[in-house]
């Protein structure tokens, strides 16, 4: 019986200085990141299935429809498609983040964290580390798959790195949408319903076909979909075809690929923080 008694364990001192608090925040966030990494080792099948799904989409669109598709500035459809698929991989991150947050809330794990002497920002920080890490690895897998299927980048090292930077910035913006939605929706079953609504929004972009070829209203939505800016910008930076001609978004793609995610973060980060604080009301 003695193992559970108070004598067994000393209560660690609470952090006094700002530096100690910061240290606790990062140590806690790292512990939660390890939790996420443990998930991959415990559910390797799910991780691989997620990648396989994306690779299958690339193969499906690229090989099945690719032959019939006319790329605007000429060039290979696979090269036109891949930047869009990278962006979709980032956008699908909303679903991953949303369901993790929502499962923790439903099971009471969030409450357990909140009743513990840990830095409250560490929960969100840990989620960011985990999801960004996961998406980065996913992106690398997609790039490898793309290279196998005939996609190439033609830009210099700086441009290529900038393209990846924009993709990860987009993922970081998606993270905050996911956290906010995960906090407001009532449970994991509702996550599927929300995702059903969001999923088409990740498809109505410039990823598969140029918006000019769509009905005007749909083309407008696709053009102004925040994902499209990143698609245009990364095509440009990778030196892939389909950068687009006339539209304002296409002409200012790199700017918008930066502005959109920043706007999204500026909106959803404070909303999420507010929502998290409201848990104690």
């Amino acid at each position: 019986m003695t193992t559970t008694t108070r004598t067994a364990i000393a209560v660690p001192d609470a952090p006094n200085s700002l530096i100690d608090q910061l240290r606790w925040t990062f140590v806690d966030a790292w512990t939660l990141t390890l939790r996420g990494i443990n998930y991959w080792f415990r559910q390797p099948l799910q991780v691989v299935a997620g990648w396989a799904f994306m690779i299958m989409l690339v193969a499906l669109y690229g090989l099945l429809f690719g032959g019939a598709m006319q790329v605007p500035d000429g060039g290979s459809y696979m090269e036109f498609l891949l930047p869009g698929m990278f962006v979709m991989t980032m956008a699908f991150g909303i679903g991953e983040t949303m369901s993790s947050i929502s499962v923790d809330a439903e099971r009471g794990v969030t409450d357990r964290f909140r009743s513990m002497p840990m830095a409250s920002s560490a929960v969100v920080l840990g989620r960011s580390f985990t999801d960004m890490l996961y998406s980065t690895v996913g992106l690398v897998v997609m790039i490898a798959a793309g290279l196998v299927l005939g996609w190439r980048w033609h830009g210099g090292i700086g441009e290529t790195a900038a393209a990846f930077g924009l993709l990860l910035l987009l993922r970081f913006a998606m993270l905050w949408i996911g956290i906010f939605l995960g906090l407001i929706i009532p449970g994991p079953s509702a996550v599927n319903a929300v995702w059903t609504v969001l999923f088409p929004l990740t498809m109505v972009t410039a990823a598969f076909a140029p918006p000019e070829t769509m009905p005007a209203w749909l083309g407008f939505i696709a053009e102004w979909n925040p994902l499209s800016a990143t698609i245009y910008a990364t095509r440009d930076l990778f030196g892939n075809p389909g950068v687009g001609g006339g539209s304002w978004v296409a002409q200012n793609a790199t700017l918008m690929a930066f502005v959109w995610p920043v706007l999204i973060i500026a909106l959803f980060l404070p909303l999420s923080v507010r929502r998290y604080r409201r848990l104690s009301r």
Partner: protein
Amino acid sequence: MGERNSTVVAEGLDKRYGSTRALDGFDLVVRRGSVCGLLGPNGAGKTTAVRILATLLRPDGGRAEVAGFDVVREAGRVRQRIGLVGQSAAVDEVLSGRQNLVMFGRLFHLGRRRAELRADELLEHFDLADTGRKAVKQYSGGMRRRLDLAASLILAPEVLFLDEPTTGLDPRGRNEVWASIRALVADGTTVVLTTQYLDEADQLADQICVIDTGRVIANGTPDELKSRIGGDRVDVVLHDAADLPAAAAIVERAAGAPADIDPDNRRVSAPVQDRMRVMSEIFAALGAANLSAEDLAVRRPTLDEVFMELTGRPAEPAPDTTTEEAA
């Protein structure tokens, strides 16, 4: 505020949700090392009270101290000294039991090595040591609860809050959890538990606070509460439900008090003062009236009857009002 030997003190806690008063002047004093049962139907405010005491909710009014620290101003210090077991087992379903405990131990800032040692200790103690790498989702309900309990005991808290710890468990799981709670109390942990099971409060608690509409309406030991409604009761169980009215008349005459008739159990019961005289009178009168009784006994009242007496309605929730409390 607070006496030296009480470790949970709440004074006039208020909590409103819109026009609903979840807590309305809630007072509580829990003696160090005791078990306090918060008993009440769904929506009475039990969970709200526990969530405020466990620093998860801010009260709109009043104040509370746990382990000597204010739950609002010194929440961080309170959090180092409490454990919380909520209504659902708050553990990660994908990870193994050990991975869960190591993770929570590290989040309690024990460091990796001490967190691992502590995890193994607790797994051993809660009889979960042989679960190995198995994911928690493969655990039984009782095992999950025990892991949940273990996770809230990592720092060996002074005060442990249990919010309906056995809801949804089968009788076996319930007994497992009860045994764990008893062992903790024997170790000196103060326990505050909410329950809507009267027998659970009766089994575990030294002190019971009956809660209704956000305030404590009665407070005392199980025995004190029972004697508040007139001490012992006499039960007569009949073989034939048709004899109930006649038997009730006999019981009322003997006991000198109105009798309750429970047709489902073919039982008549009434409060008694002079147990032996009433028993023998009823025994004789039943025989004279040629009524055949299955059982005749004097017993202490149940907490269900206590609640009925205090609030004028039964404590067991109607099936359609079970979701309110979770919010």
